[in-house]
């Protein structure tokens, strides 16, 4: 409570600092704590992953993990059963992940970009107000639904199409998972690219149109080239989310750690293996369980790098036209 009478006595500082309330300090502490949670979570993730990963690399050499081409993470659990020796070469998982993500981006990039261009440049505001939320719904549908649809509808469709064309396609082909995933990330590409295209200054469009370029020429030759960095950023973000996607691949891609780039074959991914390794037994000293954390760390690092680059690019792009 301020001592009002005192602040009018000549010579005394009328604006003297009140001992600011403990409550205020407490509030600040709480707020700072809240903000720090974000950091703590990151540290928690990194620590828990690194800790278990180190234990994993005590049992399996890091080079075997990074460069080995055979993945068979089975070790016997009892002395009596002679198990397999267990192989922890992550290369097939990584190629599998990349293959599926690549297929996904192959689908999402043209669809997303074309949608974004149409929405940003050609669509009437009415079309836009209908199409944009509909497109965004694609991203709002849980991935378990895509997984179900991919396994139940897309995969058999591809298989039957292949069969009628006379060649054999695995029912858990990378293609089926990739297609579902591609559709899922379309809105990511389209809404980010839409933003980016919108932030290309109108003056460039005016310049081009004023010279007698058609709208399409303007978009193709001026707007898109100017938006390239931002679009690249959005594609990277989409790729990163495709790499980290789990349920679709768990349900539609299968477990076969094939080292192949053939989209019609079954492959497995990093995320699938994490799920498989950890939904069964839970012994925390076997290389099998620990390998999931090594994979998790790998995933975390890859997506982190992709994000950082993407955000840098996008922010840089935004500043350029601010």
């Amino acid at each position: 409570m301020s001592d009002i009478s005192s602040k009018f006595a000549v010579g005394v500082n009328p604006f003297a600092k009140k001992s600011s309330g403990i409550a205020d300090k407490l509030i600040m502490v709480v707020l700072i704590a809240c903000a720090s949670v974000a950091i703590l979570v990151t540290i928690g993730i990194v620590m828990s992953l690194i800790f278990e990963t180190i234990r994993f690399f005590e049992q399996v050499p890091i080079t075997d993990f990074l460069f080995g081409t055979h993945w068979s993470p089975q070790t016997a659990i009892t002395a009596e059963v002679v198990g397999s020796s267990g192989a922890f070469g992550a290369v097939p998982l990584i190629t599998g992940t990349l293959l599926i993500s690549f297929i996904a981006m192959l689908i999402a990039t043209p669809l997303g970009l074309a949608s974004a261009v149409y929405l940003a440049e050609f669509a009437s505001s009415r079309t836009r107000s209908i199409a944009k939320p509909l497109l965004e719904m694609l991203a709002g549908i849980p991935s378990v639904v895509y997984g179900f649809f991919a396994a139940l509808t897309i995969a058999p469709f591809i298989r039957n199409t292949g069969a009628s064309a006379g060649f054999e396609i695995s029912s858990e082909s990378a293609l089926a998972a990739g297609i579902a995933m591609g559709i899922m990330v379309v809105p990511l590409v389209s809404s980010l690219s839409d933003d980016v295209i919108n932030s290309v200054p109108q003056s460039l469009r005016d310049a081009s149109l004023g010279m007698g370029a058609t709208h399409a020429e303007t978009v193709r030759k001026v707007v898109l080239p100017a938006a390239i960095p931002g679009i690249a950023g959005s594609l990277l973000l989409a790729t990163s989310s495709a790499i980290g996607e789990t349920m679709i691949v768990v349900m539609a891609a299968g477990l076969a750690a094939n080292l192949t780039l053939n989209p019609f074959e079954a492959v497995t991914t990093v995320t699938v293996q994490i799920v498989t390794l950890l939904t069964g037994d839970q012994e925390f000293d076997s290389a099998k369980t620990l390998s999931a954390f090594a994979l998790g760390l790998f995933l975390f690092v890859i997506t982190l790098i992709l994000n950082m680059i993407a955000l840098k690019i996008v922010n840089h792009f935004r500043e350029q036209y601010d």
Partner: protein
Amino acid sequence: AIAMSTSAASARDEIRIVGSSTVFPFSTTVAERFGKETDFPTPVIESTGTGGGLKLFCAGIGEEHPDITNASARIKQSQVDDCASNGIKDIVEVKIGYDGIVIANSRDSAPLEVTLQDVFLALAKDVPAGEDGKTQPNPYMMWSDIRPELPKTKIEVLGPPPTSGTRAAFVEIAMEGGCKSFSWIKDLKGSDKSAYKTLCHSIREDGAFIEAGENDNLIVQKLQAAPTQFGIFGFSFLDQNSDVLQGALVDGVAPEFEDIASGDYPVSRSLFFYVKKDHVGVIPGMEEFLAAFSSEDAWGEEGYLTDKGLIPMGDEERASVAKTVADLAPLSM
């Protein structure tokens, strides 16, 4: 308020079961009925594989540890020791019936007829090489390499991982059975037991045998997709999927309910679950659940578990196991 530490939390009131994916369907069926027909909560069951289940089971006494673990192969001495070292001295073994292990493929291709020896030769890491006492790494790539009568397709068998009870049983019965059919190997058993074991129990790792995880449903789906592949799993899964899969005849016997029950089908194993005696009386409903599982209604000749593919024990055996259950007689190896 939410108690932050489990040790301080009030006693768990539902039974927690882990373990074999083969026993999972039986266990869940009993649990579901148990939940419906009694006032106890439905037990919570997680499918973790026999090995993983025992690992969790043996981790200690207390409500954060499971009460029961399902096993598709009998508990091993090492596991009993592991349990004992964590203070779990009294384990009640409950055998619930039999399950055949089948080698199945899609109905889209022809059924297979094999002998146990064929199975061993197809899947072993090392196989006898010509003369007695010599072995070589498994050279057979096609089934027809083993015997010309077998199909001319690549050997590709999806099977359970080493943590699985099905794997343990398969190795012990089918592989060892085929292995023993070579007389010199049979003799080896007497002279060098560990060499015998290594030879008979090691499964090839060159890609012909594909470890397919604990989830047998996935194998079923895969086989549908790839008609030339075979899968190894419990009879109940074949039974549930008989519209799409067919079982191979082993030594001339098809995996049929009656033939497995009668023991004519060579690859059949017992299914178990193990109970932590210290939890009986602490976790409510344990005795009642055990009673429900060992009731005629469940595991009897006409019991509902037979609908799920369980092959019941004979009358006497059932009676004797039921008595063990009633007495909670601890296991002694």
